[in-house]
């Protein structure tokens, strides 16, 4: 695994995890209600 490989892995994982956490925090900010 080269440094460039680590960078691509790190950036990709960070973007996806960041997006996932952002979304779920926003979803759960609102109290769960019956739709």
């Amino acid at each position, binding site marked *: *695994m*080269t440094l*460039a*490989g*680590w*960078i*691509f*892995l790190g*950036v*990709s*994982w960070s*973007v*996806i*995890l960041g*997006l*996932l956490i952002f*979304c*779920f925090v*926003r*979803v759960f900010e*609102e109290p*769960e*209600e*019956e*739709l």
Partner: protein
Amino acid sequence: MRFFVPRRSVGVLRMTEGNKGMAEQKQRQRWGTKIGIILAVAGSAVGLGNFLRFPVQAAQNGGGAFMIPYFIAFLLLGIPLMWIEWAVGRYGGLFGHGTAPGMFHRLSQNRYVKYFGVIGIFGPLVIFIYYTYIESWLLGYAFFALMGKLSQLEGAQAMASFLSGYQGLVQNEFFSSIAPAYIFFLITFALNVFILWRGIKGGIEKLCKIAMPLLFVFAIAIAVRVLTLGVPNLARPSWNILNGLGFLWNPDFSALSQAKVWLAAAGQVFFTLSVGIGVILTYASYLKRGDDVALSGLTAASTNEFAEVILGGSIVIPVAFAFFGPIGIEVVANSGAFNLGFVTMPFIFGQIPLGVVFAFLWFSLLFLAGLTSSVSLAQPAIAFMEDEFSIDRKKAALIFGVIAFILCQPAIFFLGHGVVDELDFWGGTFALVLFATIETILFTWVFGIDKAWEEIHHGAELHLPRIYKYIIKYVTPLFLLIVLFAWFFQDGFKVILMDGVSPENVPFVLGTRIMLLAMFVALGIFVKMAWARKRKLGLLKSKGENK
């Protein structure tokens, strides 16, 4: 019998046949919770492709550099399509339409547009009739793994032989007939119909609330096991997990100059998100007018990406590299997704401590991924019967079960004759790209981008960057048209002309095409009948609807 109209219109619903019309005026089904529909859409999107197709595509198309076109396609194609489908689905649901014919009709009011919507029922139905069979293999393999049958097989050759015996392609020392596979198919099929029979809230939502967290637990457990394997063979220290990750992630920037790499990335994003099928339209139709679609669509997409890039990228390729080395991994990666999932992975699990447990977790996770996808593929056809013909939900699920069961048989008994490939081409590839292009153009250009933008933002818990208004109007349709034409000229012609089909399989391929044509025509006739029926019952209010 169900018919749903916008709340504001309930009072003015015109009924020419008194009680008959009243009976039509029932509430449609609803999701129980917001997390329920997010997990259901994510469940529809997360499938075998996340764990088997993505890592192979990435490794073959530039490694880490593949992620550049992948993320660009995700931003310009995947996410916009998610928002479009959620918004169109919710909009159509307000008028009592759970499938594309009614939704398209509402977007344009042109009398012929609803027939394009047939693709949105046809596509998922075609995928369902072969996908359910493949899903049943996973259940069978989870059972064999738990019974220790897979761990007794010695070598990849024995694994391959076991698979072809199970599929009924050959009779060998493992299987003398297709009966075991058929029994697992019956169980899987019955489970699907039972969940669909239970409905949206009591069936699909309940399933996804249990299956999705379980799927992630299984996948994380396997990924942790793989990433902590280190060097499985001390005699070959360079065959290790880190170098396996390197095989997937080390960037080859020269790949970015190749059009096929960009096309592969766009295709992967497109197919992984379950867009262009018609499933998200149906799921979103069970939302209310004020329910959010912007944040929910993005959350479902990001959940799928987590499963694909982080979990899918951490299992198959790294572990296969650690066991087969830099040359062997090329062979494994080129052997196809099924081989990877059903031959390579169980073989590897047979080599590690607690392999029986991990093999069981592997096939169980894929089965759960398959089950949450297959129920979503069936729902458009069921929703069509419920919404457009006022057939009771349970009855609709049973009718679907009977018809789909008959349609599944060629995929099971003629598997070795190219039937599944043909179904996958027309239902799982061609219909998807075409449908996505039509719905995007209809929503942004015919319905109008201003109304579309307002529709996406109605009740939204997330305000989209304004640039997306232009991306959705110009970039996404253009991107789709490029993908459609490029893919058609690259692969489509060859398949249509049966290039590579052996002469003895030509009748089977032609037979499959006739079956598909008959299905498409029948669905078109059903759409015509549905509108004629509604016209007769006086359920079409405006002048445009009466067309």
